[in-house]
């Protein structure tokens, strides 16, 4: 598959580079933008970024493997991130995670991101989302939800078309 970055996106990325005295600094912002556009970070995306920032591919690859938000495989159209850490766990996040997995036919004990066969949903546990006072909290793609009951969870699923 050929890897093409749309001109508009490339222009945005070129502008980002100007924010920093050293090009390399822009790499995380590049990866965010590319993952947002392509859904994941492919080998081609890594090479493309490295070339743009005048780096070796390993300099980018090591970021993709280090930072938890980047993934090397496509995820579902909707990624549900449930907070796993203490305050949310005390507030019922395990039940919420289980509820999503049950509803979507996923393995709640599986390691890492679990994706439905039709590729519509992915569910994963993430570490503290910094809203411990409204536990349990979660994100659906970039949208943030707090105090998520099972009923609210179903509503969120229903809103994913």
């Amino acid at each position: 598959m050929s890897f093409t970055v749309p001109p508009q996106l490339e222009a945005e990325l070129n502008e980002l580079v100007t924010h920093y005295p050293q090009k390399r600094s822009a790499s995380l912002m590049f990866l965010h933008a590319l993952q947002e556009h392509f859904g994941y970070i492919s080998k081609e995306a890594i090479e493309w970024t490295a070339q743009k920032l005048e780096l070796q591919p390993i300099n980018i690859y090591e970021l993709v493997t280090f930072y938890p938000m980047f993934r090397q495989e496509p995820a579902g159209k909707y990624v549900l991130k449930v907070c796993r850490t203490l305050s949310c766990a005390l507030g019922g996040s395990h039940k919420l995670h289980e509820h999503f997995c049950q509803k979507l036919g996923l393995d709640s004990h599986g390691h890492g991101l679990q994706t439905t066969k039709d590729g519509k949903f992915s569910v994963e546990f993430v570490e503290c989302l910094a809203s411990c006072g409204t536990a349990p909290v979660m994100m659906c793609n970039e949208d943030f939800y707090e105090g998520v009951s099972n009923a609210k969870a179903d509503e969120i699923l229903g809103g994913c078309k």
Partner: protein
Amino acid sequence: MAQEYRLILKYADEPGYTPDIDCYLRHGGYETLKKALAIAPKTVADGKTVSGPEQIRDDVKLSGLRGRGGAGFSCGLKWSFVDRRSGKPIYLICNADESEPGTFKDRQILHKDPHQMIEGMIISCYANDVKLAYIYIRGEFPEGARILNRALAEARAKNFLGKNILGSGYDLEIYVHRGAGAYICGEETGLIESLEGKRAYPRIKPPYFPAVLGLYQCPTIVNNVETLCNVKHIVAMGASEFAKLGTPNNTGTRIVSISGQVKKPGYYEVEVGKATIGQLINEFAGGLLDGRKLKALIPGGSSSKVFKAGEKFKLKKKGPDGMDIETEVEMLDLPYDFDSLMAAGTMSGSGAIIVIDDSTDIVEALANLGEFYAHESCGQCTPCREGSLWMSKVLHRLTHGEGRKQDADYLVKIADNIPGGRTICAFGEACSWPVQSFVAKFKDEFVAKGEADEKRRAAQTSGASATPELKIAASPQSP
């Protein structure tokens, strides 16, 4: 009855208060920046001239402001370490990587009142002759990043940012930089590495003190969101007025995040040290859920050492004659400030209290944190990388029916071998403290769990199979 004192969150939750610049300007926004830029150089006694920026730096020092990110280090002192003679540019980074479990105060500021933080940041940059600054915001705050970008554009349009700010001749640019889900980026040298486009491996100190060799090997200041907001108020009120808030050596206000098993979890802004832990959880956060009793309390984010309900501490207090008197204080009666918590063997860290009641299995609570630290260790130093994972594995087996009686001691042994100069950054301490304190204070529960598992397994093996017991020692064939 302790009262909230809203300085930083004064407007944030007012109905109709929006994060746009017009709303901020209606509430007196950027007036303090104008005031700061207008401070004239003054001549002091020995004929030396003190510039405006220098006066602001002195004020921040005088105000007693301590960093709100976790370490509680004097902000003025931090600024005074900056190498101003190197000829290199000085950078300032706002640490908006809020990710200490239990903490959710910066989220409120960033989402509800971004301009307050930006104004504080511009003033701080002006005070330190910074021309280029960054806001490092955690990747999980995409909305926060959008709000900040919008706010920066608004500030730029009004010439609060950019070239020749308000005709003062001062230039400054601020950009938003997004993290990508790594807790270690909250550590300032890890954050700097990350901003340079690398893995967030913290740097060793010495020589890499940010004030001297920070971003791009230039002098760099890293301040927390709430700290930068405070700078604005110090300039607005004057250092001595600011220092009247709170208690001596613990000045100003603090936004305390309270979560866990209380009726009204949330964020409460109080004068530092003017409310006790008990008042915070019982009066502000509505107390424990009906029918439950307090079991444990994490006072300053998940890395701080846990308190056991009913714990007592001997604290020194100044008596009326100026002499130190030792008094016994119950945990709930400790004033919630930097020094009292330090004296009680823990810390107020990022100002985050997690309340744990008697319905919670304390071993499971620690196992949850153990998993967090195992996941978040950056992997650079062996004791931390291996130790955090090891502790998490032991805690996992203790909570999955595979525990052993001696696991409690084993956990402490591992934890004791991580911190104390064996690692580059304080993550080593951060992952050990919960384990050391949970096990020390609730040891019987850890032992009981391991013992019960051993007994059950023994009963299962002896009852379930007719296989003869292996007697290796008695076997003549054994090697």
